[in-house]
């Protein structure tokens, strides 16, 4: 083995102090294998060294919480003895290097996180960020990522029921690929990653170990530069077929009384799964590498311990149940071997050919990594971003053109080109398919359904990370509420730049504070999550993107609603107040090429009142549709109500009171806490009464009729027709925009 030089330590992304700490822990210098193991476990990706301190502030408890952060995924009680298990993961760096495999293995990883907990995955959602599509590189990335998600998720038979995509050149060199997964488990049959019970066998199963992805975890903890493309041989290839077998084998194992603990081998592979399981139980593990199934000859202990080959698991079985475990794995054609046993001494001891090649206290490796209180401070450019002189921005002249431009812009355009490549119906639970505010999936064997959404407006977060994060929580909750669901839990995927930079760290800290305040206010616990730092290339960071995945519960599955208009003659209402919220609006970007201003105003109290109001309207069966108002403002929201239904296109005649607002603000401003609802005329009074009772401003703004969207703006006596378009035209622009751009070219 080579001597451990300063260079070698630096190549492993460890600082001098970190190296000193390793020497202290071991009471000697590490050998190369040990250095590699520390390097991956103490990487930002595995140790959360820059974020842990702040993550602790997030609310993680509540009456429904069955499992909070710290395990493979979080779990929330939904009654009937069941819980939902969910989490979101990023696979940003690998997806930039190899979009198909990067995204595919991202899906594979999050699925394993869910089924190791004993839950059968029933839904996936994906949240994506790319540079603008006029660049062929960005189109290539997008096509690759979408087909990678499709390739893996479809083969697994887990429907991808929703997601979101935003295009902005800030993501050109750092695209984001975040995948959310939800599964269902029996509340009293949750499995955890623990190596309890001294003497119990440690069993490896799944695919063989190859040289894939060695140092994936450290790569995810490093910024890109022009040389990153050289680091390519570390790319992992996914095998969804093997993963499907792994899923079925795991669930079958879990039905028997054979398991003590189980964990997937994700980032840092065998190293992380073994030391984390040992550490959680306060035990040690002895591993014999000679027993590890391998794909290639001549692999060193270093390579075996650090390999990130996909579709692998580690379980600790009850002593005496080995044969039963092996038999189930073999039934599913998986490689399987007893590779070690649980020990009492707290040491992760790795042997190869009878020799000890690594010997490290498991706890030190898993839990005693460095913690940093990184300095933070707002960037000097922050004021420049928020100070927008609106006098310099002329009000809209041709609102028809502006609306069409917005509908056609890829961020707002229909994502059908994407979600049609995803099997979104398999498992026959999908009640609300992609294309509405939230996806709704029924829970078989009950009358319940869960709604899910992923949301984050990262421009708002750039302009004001604290407000942006609060707005993201509010929007996610609003999306759920519009489908009739009560928000019950949250997972996050915090995508940021380099935490060693005080301005980035400031964004991170502010975003955490914002999430915390909003979640506490709405009483939504955060039960799992993931941090992805170093989304930065050549010194340029992405917008702060604290992506949220929120889950809601619908107690009676018939009480759900979708965003599109249903019937001619129905009346249209606006709940909430329009203000002059143009800052950070999509309209400003698309029409005026500005990404500036203060993000929209948000009152958590008003937002909460709105949620209660909408939920009670849906529960009382008063609504035909409900759609929250987000990117593109009221005009886009109304257009979506008209055209997003699968079957019919319905027109509407709408009158918006203007008050003292700019015309563009009333049409395209992104004021929060607003929802457009439609209802049969007989329910008019009941709706007005209920809204008033809840303290939510309400206004009848028009009715559904004809096949054009006609929009008047003004006050009594002086109204102006600002938009008049056939719904077919709106739809043609909106529905095929992505397809037109992405058709092989």
């Amino acid at each position, binding site marked *: 083995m080579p001597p451990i030089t300063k260079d070698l330590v630096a190549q492993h992304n460890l600082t001098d102090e970190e190296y000193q700490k390793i020497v202290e822990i071991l009471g000697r210098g590490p050998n190369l294998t040990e250095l590699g193991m520390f390097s991956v476990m103490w990487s930002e990706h595995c140790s959360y060294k820059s974020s842990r301190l702040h993550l602790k502030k997030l609310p993680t408890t509540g009456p429904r919480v069955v499992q909070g952060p710290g395990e493979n995924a979080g779990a929330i009680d939904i009654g009937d003895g069941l819980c939902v298990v969910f989490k979101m993961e990023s696979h940003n760096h690998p997806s930039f290097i190899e979009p*198909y495999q990067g995204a595919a293995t991202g899906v594979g990883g999050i699925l394993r996180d869910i089924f190791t907990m004993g839950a059968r995955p029933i839904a996936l959602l994906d949240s994506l960020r790319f540079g603008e599509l006029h660049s062929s590189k960005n189109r290539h990335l997008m096509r690759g990522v979408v087909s990678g998600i499709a390739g893996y998720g479809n083969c697994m038979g887990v429907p991808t029921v929703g997601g979101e995509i935003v295009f902005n050149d800030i993501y050109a060199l750092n695209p984001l690929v975040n995948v959310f997964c939800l599964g269902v488990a029996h509340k009293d049959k949750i499995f955890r990653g623990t190596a309890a019970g001294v003497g119990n066998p440690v069993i490896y199963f799944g*695919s063989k170990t190859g040289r894939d992805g060695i140092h994936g975890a450290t790569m995810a903890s490093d910024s890109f530069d022009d040389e990153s493309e050289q680091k390519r041989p570390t*790319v992992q*290839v996914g095998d969804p*077929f093997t993963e499907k077998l792994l899923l079925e084998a795991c669930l079958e194992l879990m039905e028997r009384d054979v398991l003590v603990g189980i964990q997937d081998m994700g980032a840092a592979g065998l190293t992380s799964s073994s030391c984390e399981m040992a550490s959680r139980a306060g035990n040690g593990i002895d591993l014999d590498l000679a027993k590890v199934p391998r794909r*290639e000859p001549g692999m060193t202990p270093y390579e075996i311990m650090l390999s990130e080959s996909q579709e692998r698991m580690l379980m600790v079985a009850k002593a005496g149940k080995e044969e039963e475990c092996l038999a189930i794995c073999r039934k599913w054609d998986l490689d399987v071997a007893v590779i070690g046993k649980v020990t009492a001494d707290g040491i992760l001891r790795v042997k190869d050919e009878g020799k000890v090649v690594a010997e490290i206290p498991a706890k030190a490796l898993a839990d005693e990594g460095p913690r940093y209180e990184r300095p933070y401070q707002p960037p000097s450019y922050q004021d420049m971003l928020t100070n927008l002189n609106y006098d310099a921005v002329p009000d809209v002249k041709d609102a028809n053109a502006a609306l069409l431009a917005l509908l056609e812009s890829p961020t707002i355009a229909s994502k059908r080109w994407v979600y049609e490549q995803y099997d979104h119906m398999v498992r026959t639970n999908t009640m609300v398919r992609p294309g509405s505010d939230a996806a709704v999936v029924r829970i078989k064997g009950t009358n319940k359904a869960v709604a899910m959404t992923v949301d984050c407006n990262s421009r708002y977060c750039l302009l004001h990370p604290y407000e942006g994060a609060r707005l993201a929580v509010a929007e996610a909750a609003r999306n759920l509420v519009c489908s009739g669901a009560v928000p019950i839990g949250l997972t996050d995927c915090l995508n940021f730049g380099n935490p060693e930079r005080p301005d980035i760290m400031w964004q991170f800290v502010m975003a955490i504070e914002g999430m915390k305040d909003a979640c506490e206010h709405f009483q939504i616990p955060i039960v799992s999550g993931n941090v992805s730092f170093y989304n930065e290339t050549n010194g340029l960071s992405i917008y702060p993107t604290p992506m949220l995945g929120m889950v809601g519960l619908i107690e009676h599955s018939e009480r759900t609603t979708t965003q599109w208009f249903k019937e001619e003659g129905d009346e249209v209402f606006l709940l909430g107040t329009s203000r002059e919220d143009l800052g950070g609006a999509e309209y400003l970007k698309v029409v005026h090429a500005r990404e500036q201003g203060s993000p929209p105003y948000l009152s958590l109290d008003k937002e909460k009142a709105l949620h209660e109001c909408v939920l009670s309207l849906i529960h009382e069966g008063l609504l035909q549709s409900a759609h929250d108002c987000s990117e593109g403002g009221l005009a886009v929201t109304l257009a979506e109500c008209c055209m997003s239904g699968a079957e019919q296109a319905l027109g509407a005649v709408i009158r918006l009171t203007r008050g003292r607002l700019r015309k563009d603000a009333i049409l395209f401003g992104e004021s929060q806490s607003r929802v457009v609802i439609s209802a049969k005329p007989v329910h008019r009074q009941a709706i007005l009464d209920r809204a008033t009772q809840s303290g939510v401003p309400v206004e009848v703004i028009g009715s559904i009729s004809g096949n054009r969207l006609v929009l008047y703006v003004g006050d009594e006596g002086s109204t102006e027709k600002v938009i008049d378009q056939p719904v077919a035209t709106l739809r043609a622009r909106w529905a095929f925009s992505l397809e037109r751009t992405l058709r092989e070219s």
Partner: protein
Amino acid sequence: MKAKIHVTLKRGILDPQGKAIEHALESLGFKNAANVRVGKYMELDLMEQDKAKAEAQVKSMCEKLLANTIIEEYRYELSA
């Protein structure tokens, strides 16, 4: 000219298809087949007489589109 192009996974990269086919061959009774690897084969006609130019073009096609050089390698033959 006619170009024949082979694109195969780099050594060391997992080949799930190859693995599945090997398994299937085995259960069909072909127990003496091993190391099955699956790749792509492409043929195309190039309206180009000059061999050197044709070669440069095919190489560039492979690099840009036909092979995913992160995980795949390629080779090609040209014939009249």
